[in-house]
């Protein structure tokens, strides 16, 4: 039950927090100003991403501990780690698509689509990247999700960097 609440509701927080990180620079004027500065925008992005990740982890930890406080009976570490992996993966996917297409709308859309599809097809197509594995008491998928999330976030920075060089 707790796994269901965390995976099906709380994990969305990753999309809300992580996806719009590059949005400010979608405006060409702002982008030009920022790119001309001495401090590399990539550095700024890394800081932003770290802050977002800390925010996501603390919100989820707070939520899970509130559940425990309200007489929940489950191991918190597993649940927090699992939910964070799902949230980061969803956020990372959205972020990557958003930086690739330079359109935050598509970023949101793809991560939500992934979420809805996975919920409907119950991991038939996503296999090791199944978002709701804690509900089946399996944590193996969460490691894959976490690695995929890290890769996606790095890739989205890479896309931005390549675009900046080519510009």
């Amino acid at each position, binding site marked *: 039950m707790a796994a*269901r609440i965390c995976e099906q509701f709380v994990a969305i927080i990753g999309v809300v927090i992580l996806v*719009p990180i590059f949005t400010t620079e979608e405006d060409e004027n702002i982008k030009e100003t920022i790119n001309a500065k001495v401090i590399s925008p990539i550095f700024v992005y890394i800081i932003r991403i770290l802050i977002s990740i800390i925010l996501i982890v603390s919100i989820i930890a707070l939520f899970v501990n509130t559940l425990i406080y309200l007489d929940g009976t489950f191991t918190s570490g597993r649940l927090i780690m699992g939910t964070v992996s799902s949230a980061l993966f969803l956020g990372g996917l959205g972020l990557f698509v958003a930086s690739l297409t330079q*359109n935050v*709308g*598509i970023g949101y*859309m793809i991560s*939500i*689509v992934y979420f809805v*599809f996975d919920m409907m*097809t119950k991991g038939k197509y996503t296999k090791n990247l199944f978002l709701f594995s804690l509900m089946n008491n399996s944590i193996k998928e969460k490691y894959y999700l976490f690695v995929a999330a890290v890769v996606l976030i790095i890739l989205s920075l890479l896309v931005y960097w390549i675009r900046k060089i080519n510009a």
Partner: protein
Amino acid sequence: MFNLFLKECTQLGKSLIYIVFICITIAFYTTQYFSDIKGNDPRNSGSPLIKPSYVQDVEKYNKENDMYPCGSTNEEIPEQIISKSTLMMYEEHMKGTYSAYPHGLFKNVKLDKENTKKIEEILCKITGKSLIELEKLHKNVNWNEIHFSSSSKDYSSFKKLMEKANNIIGEQSNYSKENLRRFGVRPITYEEAMKTYKDLIEKDKITNGFARLFCDYMGIVMGLFPVFVVFSFIRKDRKSNMKQVIYSRRVSSAKLILSRYSALIIMMMVPIFLLAGVSTFQVVSISEKLNLTVDYFAFFKYSIGWLMPTLMAVTAVGMFLTLLTETAIAIPVQMIWWYSSISKGVLIGNYDLSQLMIRFNTIYDRDEFVSIIYNIFLNRMFFILISAIFVVTSIYILNLKRIGRIDFYDKYSKYFTNFKGKFKNSLSK
């Protein structure tokens, strides 16, 4: 106005997000609707398009094939319900956990000592045996030997006891009024199967039944994903710095909004119409083999009447929120709306006014559909009204924005800069 509409249509058609939207719709169609109707192929034995065959000895057939010739259904049969539900309760009692499904979510309920005792009492009262006797019967798989008298008086007192148990365990346990019914199973008779078949083939002309299932699944797409398209499309003005140029044009706000809104609606209905065409073609190709007549326009009729109001409401609300705040707030709002509508978990027959998508997850049950068609009509009218209200408000907002009366975005970005300034000041002090 028509020129403007065409321009908006081509603009939208060329945008990436619209193409992504079409891909999602098609993917959803193939994974949900298409995989669901595969079983209806007349080559399969249980296909609804094949006339049910008459079997004389149903019980014998059941023993041989482990199923009834025309399937089975739930009915309130006291003997079965009393016996099966008490067995279930006894097993749950021994396990120490009880299942409940509040708000469609599964919940494992553990009872404290006092309540466990109450459940024990209820068990003993219904079966007329002590717990030790029950344990013996359960071990030897002789549960059927318990003599349950099923006179109507006993059954009503049984129901009262079960209600008590349900109150102890919590909302929507296995023993709630609705869930008790599931313990009674009886075979579907030939006459009933024949009526279902005739309803689908003759009254529904096959496609009407399929179209309801089609709308059920595609409604899930239409209740959420259009908002992304709307958000990107409306925000484009801001992104490409066209805001001021458009604002200062002579064209009226009403024209601007209406052409944009209608372009969004028509363009997003295009994939639905295409898929409706594909589905019609599919059904026609199946039914031609069986020499059955088909209603060619059913999918289109249902798409317009059933899906379009959902799309209209989502688009109007999304457009309004994006115009007003120029942020992505419309997306979380729509997600919450969509989730609250879908998480009720009722697959058939929920049509109250909060229901953005109407679900009807079956190709049968024509009678049920006919009985609620008026409520569905009211629901759809309600959403059309909502979208009209939001479109009119959007026109008003755009008007105010053009004359510079509101700029929500600037206002609260200013608020944040002030906030930052205050923060800095307090630090330097």
